[in-house]
């Protein structure tokens, strides 16, 4: 079938646009900035003390703040979790603040999956169909001996490839800069992962020790999956709205709302079914407490999959049936 040449077309169009180079540049610049900030920050933070002393001081500080009773509820939960997590590390003689290049890469995967990678994914996704409409090239594109479904499928494939490339680039750049700053070795180090807060109690039954490189691959895999699902939703907005600006604006607003909502309305349980609440997938895997109880890795994967599948079905249906008049 003539599908691969269609994908080749779409990939070429993505790469040849200035947009792609700009995104890569932003990624490089941002990671560089983060590494630089970390390096500078750690000098002050470490202040020459033994790590055990440092951690005990932090635990004591948080316990004081809790006892004073002046903390907001959502911060309270996180503090209790953090105290238990730090104590766990101290008891097992593992420095929770240690950082190496590999550890930085893993931390990057966690941190970038909830806003940075989705933003970059939506930059491509919201544009890939709308640009054809705004440039007028959609008319020639759809008057070929190729079904509309095949055209959209080839765009979807190119989008997935671009997102994958971007995630890999992020990992590579994070390792390059992080390694330069904190050392390239350490992939074999054990990582304590799977911390969980059930209700108010700290659950130690799920904690496991995993070798770092395996853990990193898992975390990046989840970040990649989250970014792909954002891409699917961005594709839908691109098909529905036919304007890059409108599609990007919509997706952007949804993402931002997702970061605000748990903080503003922590007791609204139904928000766990929202797409944006499940984006910090790698964090949930690593055991960081989710904003709403009841969210697990399995739950998030299911929710994101359903949203992405529904978005794709809607996108294909609209694209195939709609008149192209303008």
């Amino acid at each position, binding site marked *: 079938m*003539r599908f691969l*040449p*269609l994908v*080749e*077309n779409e990939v*070429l*169009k993505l790469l*040849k*646009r*200035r947009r792609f180079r700009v995104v890569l540049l932003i990624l490089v610049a941002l990671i560089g900035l983060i590494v630089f900030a970390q390096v500078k920050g750690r000098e002050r933070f470490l202040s020459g003390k033994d790590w055990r002393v440092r951690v005990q001081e932090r635990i004591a500080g948080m316990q004081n703040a809790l006892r004073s009773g002046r903390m907001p509820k959502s911060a309270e939960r996180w503090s209790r979790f953090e105290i238990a997590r730090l104590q766990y590390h101290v008891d097992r003689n593992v420095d929770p603040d240690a950082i190496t290049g590999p550890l930085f890469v893993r931390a990057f995967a966690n941190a970038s999956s909830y806003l940075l990678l989705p933003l970059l994914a939506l930059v491509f996704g919201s544009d890939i169909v709308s640009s054809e409409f705004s*440039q*007028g*090239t959609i*008319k*020639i594109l*759809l*008057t*070929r*001996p*190729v*079904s509309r479904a095949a055209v959209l499928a080839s765009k979807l494939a190119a989008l997935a490839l671009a997102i994958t490339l971007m995630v890999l680039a992020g990992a590579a750049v994070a390792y390059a800069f992080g390694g330069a700053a904190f050392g390239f070795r350490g992939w074999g180090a054990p990582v304590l992962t799977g911390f969980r807060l059930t209700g108010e109690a700290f659950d130690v039954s799920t904690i496991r020790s995993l070798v770092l490189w395996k853990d990193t691959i898992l975390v990046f895999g989840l970040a990649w999956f989250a970014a792909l699902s954002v891409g699917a939703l961005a594709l839908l907005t691109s098909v529905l709205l036919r304007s890059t600006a409108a599609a990007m604006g919509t997706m952007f607003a949804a993402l931002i709302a997702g970061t605000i909502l748990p903080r503003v309305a922590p007791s609204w349980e139904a928000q766990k079914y929202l797409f944006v609440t499940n984006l910090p997938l790698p964090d949930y895997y690593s055991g960081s407490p989710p904003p709403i109880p009841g969210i697990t890795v399995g739950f998030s994967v299911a929710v994101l999959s359903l949203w992405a599948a529904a978005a794709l079905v809607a996108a294909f249906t609209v694209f195939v*049936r709609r*008149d*192209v*008049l303008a």
Partner: protein
Amino acid sequence: MADTVGQSNASSREIVLAAEGLTKTFGKRQAVSDVSFELYAGEVFGFLGPNGAGKTTTIRMLVGLARPDHGTVRIRGIDLAHDFARAMAHVGSIVESPDLYGYLTGRENLLHFARMLPDGAQGRIPELASLVALEERLDDKAETYSLGMLQRLGIAQALLGAPDLLILDEPANGLDPAGIREIRRLVRLLASDRGIAVFLSSHLLSEVEQMCDRVTIIHRGRALATGSVRELLDRSASGATRWRVRPASRAAEILREFSGEPPSVEDGETVAARIPRDRLPGAVAALANAGIEIYAVEPRASSLEEVFLEVTGGETV
């Protein structure tokens, strides 16, 4: 020129495009009502009408960009609605403006669209580039092209699949006289040399008159008159004729009897008169009997404009 080619083609060739009962309604407005026509191989068919008459909407239905509410489009007998890809393999088109990827070169644009076609399309690029006279600029980005060059690149793109049918929506739009001449030359060449059926829409009467073998006049979504340019001109009731006769003034007096309005003497041997077709033989006989020297009787080609005004009840293009 145009009409003699049309006459010899129409009956002997096969039907390349058949539209039947095409209808499209937007809300309360019927943009296209029950439009039907047929195109034969090797002929240039004009779709003539003012802006807003429904030309572009019809064209969008012909290439599958819009779905007709009623009616069918058949390309080489294949129903567009049921077998889109197979039908479109025979079609090359430019709808409204030839929008191409500005950030790609002319060649990259052609390669892009060639990849969407069956094998062999890529190999046609050099020959097509030379046909539309774009070889020198082919490796420049399309955003640097003038409108005329974009139009020609658009035609090259439309011909990539070696189509039997070329659909051009207002091909002369925005072009200068040299550009228009170039398009006219290409279109007639493609029809006569390659036997391609060409469907073009236009609101430029002069262009349609010069380029097309047969014409359909479309007005407010309806197809009003269809026929070869010659047929439509003959059908027009104007009946204006130019007589080369001596002596002109005496002839004018005699012709007064046969014509509704007084004939006008244009010079020593020319008289312009409006005489209904069926009265012409009588007029010639009367002149001959009076001893007037008759050198020629020519139809004062009423233009397609007059036909158009008649048919559409006075609305201008």
